[in-house]
């Protein structure tokens, strides 16, 4: 694989290699927390922070960690940053966002997007490239969460960022329930694949 420029490393995660829409990773938080844009955004920011920091540390220790125990080492590193995020969020975020994110913040420890970037990228690349990669992938995941959650919030609750969109609109409550999550994610995946097919790319 040829080396990308630094901007290339950053932007590849936005759409071309988007962790949710292309790699279809991190479905569990993506389906569970995207009932409102606020939640999706908070989750995305938490993942960006953890991913950048863990990528930096894992890139630094990549040559001294024995191959056999690398996964436990990555998890310890990731868990440290997740703990920081969790405590900070508990201290400064509005309680209702904390409540709706709930267990999914601690679960970032085993988020497969972070493990995936640690395993395939940060453990084989330099510090700067790993940090940029983590930032790009985190932003890509956040973009995906915001798209998903804004569609679901507008259709399912009739609001966006908690503000009412139209008085006369009758919200379809199914969209903020689990079936709506699967439906919107499935349709978005279908849409992105369809766009690719139209451009003549392989899906």
């Amino acid at each position, binding site marked *: 694989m040829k080396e990308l420029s630094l901007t290339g490393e950053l932007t590849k995660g936005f759409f071309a290699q988007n962790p949710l829409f292309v790699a279809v990773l991190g479905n569990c938080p993506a389906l569970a927390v995207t009932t409102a844009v606020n939640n999706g955004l908070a989750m995305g920011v938490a993942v960006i922070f953890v991913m950048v920091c863990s990528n930096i540390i894992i890139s630094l220790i990549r040559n001294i960690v024995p191959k056999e125990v690398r996964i436990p080492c990555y998890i310890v590193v990731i868990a440290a940053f997740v703990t920081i995020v969790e405590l900070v969020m508990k201290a400064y975020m509005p309680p209702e966002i904390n409540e709706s994110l709930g267990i999914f913040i601690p679960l970032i420890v085993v988020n497969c997007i972070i493990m995936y970037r640690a395993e395939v990228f940060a453990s084989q690349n330099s510090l700067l490239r790993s940090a940029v990669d983590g930032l790009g992938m985190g932003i890509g995941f956040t973009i995906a969460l915001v798209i998903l959650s804004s569609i679901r919030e507008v259709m399912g609750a009739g609001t966006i960022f908690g503000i009412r969109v139209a008085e006369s609109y*009758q919200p*379809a*409550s*199914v*969209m903020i*329930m689990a*079936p709506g999550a699967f*439906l919107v994610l499935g*349709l978005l995946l*279908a849409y992105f694949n369809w766009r690719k097919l139209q451009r003549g790319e392989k899906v």
Partner: protein
Amino acid sequence: MSNAQEKVLLVTTSPHIRGPEDIPRVMWTVVGALAPAGLVGVYLFGYYALFIVILSVLAAVLTEAVIQKYLLGQPVSVKDGSAVITGILLAYILPPGVPWYIPIVGAIFAIAIVKHAFGGLGNNIWNPALAARAFLQVAYPAPINSDWRVLKQGGIFSNITGVDSITQASPLFKEFGGKTYNYTDLLTGNVPGCIGETSAIALILGGLYLIYRGYVDWRVPAGYIATVFILAKFLPAKIEAPWANDPIYHVLAGGLMLGAFFMATDMVTSPLTKKGLLVFGIGCGVLTTLIRFYAAYPEGVCYSILLMNTATPIIDRYTQPRLLGQGKK
């Protein structure tokens, strides 16, 4: 056919017989067979029911035309009547007093997501109208689940959404406050229910005509209705209503006739083999009775057909007829 004519040499396997049947003919015949039940519905529930049917059909046809023309760039095939049928069937399984946006949302969901997102006519996994109804049931639970009304005095000029109507328990309502209806009312349709499901006699007539024309295989409705009849008689019901183990009541009430003759028999979403069709009908009957007897919902026709639609590929796989000379496995 346009694709075939473009080719200079058309090579296909036998048989090469051309019948007069094509998709438009089948579809418009089904529309005709559905008409009596709709007319009864409009007579019983007033002009608002007609308004819901028209709205649903228009939304289905428009959605199909827009998707084919602007999204997929295909020739627009709304004249074949399949979108019209989806629109009619969807309206038939909605309560007569639903707000105007419900048939529109449902028709868009049925055509855009259940039908065209899965590849269009012939490729959908579920019956579009039923899947849309299931979607509406979770999307707008209040008007779909609890708003059962009848007109105080029948007649097309009465308004079901206003003072001309009274709320009444539907025939299959199984909790306290339920009401038992007599067989005559269930046959003619003079009971609260969805627009096109109440009149058993109109649905049976339309269904028998389709069986006579050969568009519907008798195995599905026969297997379905017989299974419900037998299970309703002998299965211990957890319902405290006088009709709990009355098999005739179970067969006539609710959406069973509409489901058995017009929904479960959908050519696209039911099995291909004769044995498979019988299995499909019996499966629908078992699930319907189980939902009616033991689940929270009063009616199980919609979900049982959707579940059996999902099982259709498996049924097809295990009921394949043995080829001549293949021998036994």
